[in-house]
């Protein structure tokens, strides 16, 4: 047994070495062997990562675009395209210098003239971007390599925002592209990232193909998270669409593909049993299930009733029902994610324990008139399908009247932005999942935006939370941020904007001849090597 392990390890090592050589030389000597065939969690249809927040498009962005700053594996923001930057003593003036050798895929040099419109376009759409924009007085290019951002008042968010790891990521695009109206999709796909998008091989519903960009100049540091040197070690990456989870697994085991971003949890036992396949938890921060209220209509326009829900639910049931294997979920009452700097239990101690008695009592006090909770149930996304039924059962046992309506995810997405009363195609509650990296603090996490009509669907209106978020944006020190975050969480425990239903982890799966998959909030394909055999 042991000897087997040994021998396999040595094989892999050898393969890795070979791969490394090939990758370094960039030669496609190994031909097909150097093509990485991947099944992503969904199909790439839209390809403007600024225009949409869909995660698949974000992943596409990381393939072909580069960022000014990036989050490393320790959650620290590191310069990426930026070589170095200075901050004036009054913390109001930032001066950035781009590193040498940055090239667009059309072999034009990257200049500050490209950078500034890129930031503007991103900031026009991203919530965090909008907040930060509120602080920015001006952005000016000093010369092709250096540019300067002046703030109205100090904020700790600027650098963090520019290194925002997940949707929407501030990707840098060429000037002509970046100047596209934010409301319109871009039509040209030239980036400066380690891979190039092979447009004429892109067949939506079938495959998207990326080729190594020979002109990419990686940073010298070793790759870490989204930061460090982005060394492409395969010539081609093909995103294959296999809609049927079972079939994706079959294909991986049959060696027809090399890697699955998000295999269904229930099928993991199959993969664990297969010595040619390895599992890899690439997103260490994981994800967070979330229940979103519609604050504009009964019953959830009443904070007490929302709190009753908070008492009625418990994370374990949701996690069991969807993930099942405790190895891949974690009960976590911290809204800003367990294992993150802002982790706290504040206000949540007695909540999320399925305390139906308490819930009933609150409903009574709130004078709940048995208005039905219209619960949107999406039936076609594996990781979400089982959430709504659990919520329904828990709600009902707490005395809610629940009308669960099943539909495909696309319809949910369409329904949840409708503000009509539930009787006329509106809704009361829906369930979704966030990538932990998107919700690390109250400003970036969209669901905390409580600015009423301007807030995301659900439209919470809570001046207190808004005040706290404003303060957070200005907060200088970690400590101050932490203290505000706790305040926010306490407030939410009283008048929930949404309910966090626990953290879960999505291991990826790959053939054992694949190595070098980085741990990061998003799946990235630089640094991945493909050895021979297996």
């Amino acid at each position, binding site marked *: 047994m042991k000897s087997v392990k040994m021998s396999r390890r040595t094989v892999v090592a050898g393969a890795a070495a070979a791969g490394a050589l090939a990758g370094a030389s960039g030669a496609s000597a190994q031909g097909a062997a150097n093509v990485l065939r991947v099944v992503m969690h969904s199909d790439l249809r839209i390809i403007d990562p600024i*225009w949409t927040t869909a995660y698949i498009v974000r992943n596409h962005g990381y393939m072909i675009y580069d960022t000014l700053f990036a989050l490393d594996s320790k959650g620290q923001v590191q310069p990426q395209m930026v070589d170095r930057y200075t901050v004036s003593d009054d913390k109001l003036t930032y001066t950035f210098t781009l590193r040498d050798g940055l090239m667009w895929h059309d072999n034009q040099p990257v200049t500050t003239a490209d950078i500034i419109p890129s930031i503007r376009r991103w900031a026009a759409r991203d919530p965090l971007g909008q907040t930060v924009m509120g602080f920015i007085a001006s952005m000016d290019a000093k010369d092709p390599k250096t540019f300067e951002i002046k703030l109205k008042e100090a904020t700790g968010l600027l650098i963090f925002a520019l290194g925002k790891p997940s*949707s929407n990521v501030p990707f840098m695009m060429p000037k002509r592209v970046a100047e596209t109206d934010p*409301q319109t999709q871009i039509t040209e796909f030239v980036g400066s990232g380690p891979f190039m998008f092979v447009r004429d091989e892109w067949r*939506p519903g079938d495959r998207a193909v990326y080729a190594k960009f020979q002109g990419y100049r990686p940073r010298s540091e070793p790759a870490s998270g989204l930061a460090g040197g982005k060394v492409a070690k395969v010539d081609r990456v093909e995103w294959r669409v296999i809609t*049927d989870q079972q079939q994706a697994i079959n294909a991986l085991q049959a060696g027809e593909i090399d890697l699955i971003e998000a295999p269904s949890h229930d099928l993991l036992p199959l993969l664990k049993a297969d010595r040619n396949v390895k599992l890899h938890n690439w997103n260490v921060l994981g994800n967070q299930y979330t229940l979103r209220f519609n604050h504009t209509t009964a019953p959830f326009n009443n904070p007490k009733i929302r709190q009753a829900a908070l008492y009625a639910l418990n994370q374990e049931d949701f996690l069991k029902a969807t993930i099942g294997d405790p190895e891949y979920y974690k009960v976590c009452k911290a809204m800003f994610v367990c294992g993150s700097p802002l982790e706290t239990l504040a206000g949540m101690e007695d909540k999320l324990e399925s305390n139906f008695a308490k819930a009933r009592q609150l409903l009574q006090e709130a004078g709940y008139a048995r208005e039905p909770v219209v619960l949107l149930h999406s039936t076609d996304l594996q990781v979400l399908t089982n959430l709504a039924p659990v919520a329904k059962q828990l709600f009902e046992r707490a005395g809610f009247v629940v009308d669960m309506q099943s539909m495909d995810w696309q319809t949910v997405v369409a329904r949840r932005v409708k503000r009509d009363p539930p009787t006329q195609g509106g809704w009361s509650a829906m369930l979704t999942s966030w990538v932990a990296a998107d919700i690390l603090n109250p400003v970036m996490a969209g669901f905390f935006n409580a600015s009423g009509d301007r807030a995301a669907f659900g439209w919470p209106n809570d001046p207190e939370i808004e005040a706290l978020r404003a303060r957070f944006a200005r907060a200088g020190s970690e400590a101050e941020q932490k203290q505000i975050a706790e305040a926010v969480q306490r407030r939410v425990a009283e008048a929930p904007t949404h309910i966090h239903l626990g953290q879960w982890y999505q291991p990826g799966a790959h053939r054992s001849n694949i190595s070098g998959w980085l741990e990061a909030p998003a799946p990235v394909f630089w640094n991945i090597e493909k050895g021979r055999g297996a």
Partner: protein
Amino acid sequence: MISYILRRLAATVPVLFTVAVMVFLMLRLTPGDPAAIIAGDNATTQQILDIRTKLGLEEPILQQFFIWLGSILRGDLGESFFFRKTVFELISERIEPTLSLAFLTIVLAVVIAIPLGVLAAYRQGTWIDRVVMGFSVIGFSVPVFVIGYLLIYIFAIKLGWFPVQGYQRISGGVFPWFRSLVLPAFTLSVIYIALIARMTRTSVLEVLSEDYIRTARAKGQTEVKVLFQHALKNAAVPIVTVVGIGVALLIGGVVVTESVYSIPGLGRLTVDAVLARDFPVIQAIILAFSFVYVLINLIVDLSYTIFDPRIRY
């Protein structure tokens, strides 16, 4: 003949028009909002409204219809809401797998089913008959996807004879193309084998009771030749018809089979498009399928003349 074809083609116009109207209305009344889907998960209401206007979804329905109809007549199928591609591009790059699958399925079905049917008819009432008919009934009764999974499990996973999924373009060599289609085609053909075998049996049975069969026997003709020279040719018309009808069914079956074997064909394009409310794509595909259907019927009718000299147009 020619004028008949012309007349038939002319007759398809109202049909396709009805289809167009029905499909268009159906889609415009669906609750799903493509704009919201395009905008993505964290989009605000305003962003979605902007997109709706961009897609022309804010126009009055009637206007939308005529705009669309106009462009169709100009041969322009419009552009997908999602993919930065024209519907025409999308369909044309998806058509090969579907055609291949359909073609192979029908060939397979015909080759297997007709001899079975004739045999069953000739041995009517014997165990052979019952076995064939039994199989055909079962063929009707098991959902396509179940058959698919079973075949995959046995022939792809356990035996490893065929790939689990995916489609190899014919440009990449006939053998890999064929190999990638064997399982899907067989999965899909089961129901047609059943269908065609039954029809062959019934119509051959009918023919066998005809006088000219007796005449042939009275000439001293052997049974085999009586069956295949006299009976089958006369039984051909209904068989051809059912094969034609089969094609209509086929289109439905393709949808499922393609998603089981993740074959990037029109079937899956349709499902994706419907789930995504990609109106232009759905409309175009359904129209296309309908046109194919009508065309097939015409071809079937014309093929009658080959099998039966009495039929002239």
